[in-house]
């Protein structure tokens, strides 16, 4: 199954990788150095992040640089914003219902 963004960013190392490459595109070797991890461990994280479109590879000569896909992150924030609005609408409906119920009790 394809990992989703929630699973991808629930991991502290992956969040750190994202924070770092949001500032500057990095190669897997540099990531491994910065986080003091094996190349293998870095590859695993890259795979998860790439599969949910949070990062994208761009070859440059013999190296591959990973870039942060801000658009995907915005999409995620947009969903959450929508979710928040759903609740706002429901709670406003509940306010009205409660005010009606209060009047009935009087």
């Amino acid at each position: 199954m394809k990992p989703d963004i929630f699973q991808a960013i629930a991991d502290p190392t992956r969040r750190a990788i994202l924070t770092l490459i949001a500032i500057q595109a990095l190669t897997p070797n540099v990531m491994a150095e910065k986080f003091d991890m094996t190349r293998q461990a870095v590859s695993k994280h890259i795979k998860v992040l790439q599969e949910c479109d949070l990062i994208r590879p761009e070859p440059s000569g013999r190296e591959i640089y990973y870039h942060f896909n801000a658009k995907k992150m915005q999409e995620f924030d947009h969903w959450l914003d929508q979710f928040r609005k759903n609740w706002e609408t429901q709670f406003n409906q509940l306010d009205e219902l409660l005010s009606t119920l209060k009047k009935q009790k009087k």
Partner: protein
Amino acid sequence: MNKDLLFDFNVDKAAKTVKITREFDAPQALVWDAFTQAALLDQWNAPAPMRAKTKYMDFKVGGRRFYAMIGPDGAAAGWVVQEYTAITPITHFKMYNTFADQEENRQLPGSEWDHTFSEQNGRTTVRIAIYNESLARLEKMIELGFQEALTMTLTTLEEILKLIEK
């Protein structure tokens, strides 16, 4: 609506939890009823233009509420099963929320919803924590409301256009 009623919504991405706090200008027992009685839930528990229609509700530990999300066209856009896992009258209840088909077959995994109620100076504060193992489910939850809202907007637009034509 009451502008001074607290509404706080935040997402703890690391804990995969959405935390919602909302204040209501009503006593705790009344707010508790609005969250735990089918006839009242159906009056507010879906974002307009959607509405909720409860098929049955058995509010006790191990009991369930099975309801449909009805779209503006009157057709069910989705079904939800909520299973109650803990209840302390008027202060706290927990449930396990899952999407389902019309036959009540649950689509696991779902999410855990925790509700806490407290009253101060005649106002009731409700705290809701929603833990989702996967975002895919959250996405679906949002899309359900979102698509219907979009359809509604387009329908309204059509009606306005018709009026202009006349």
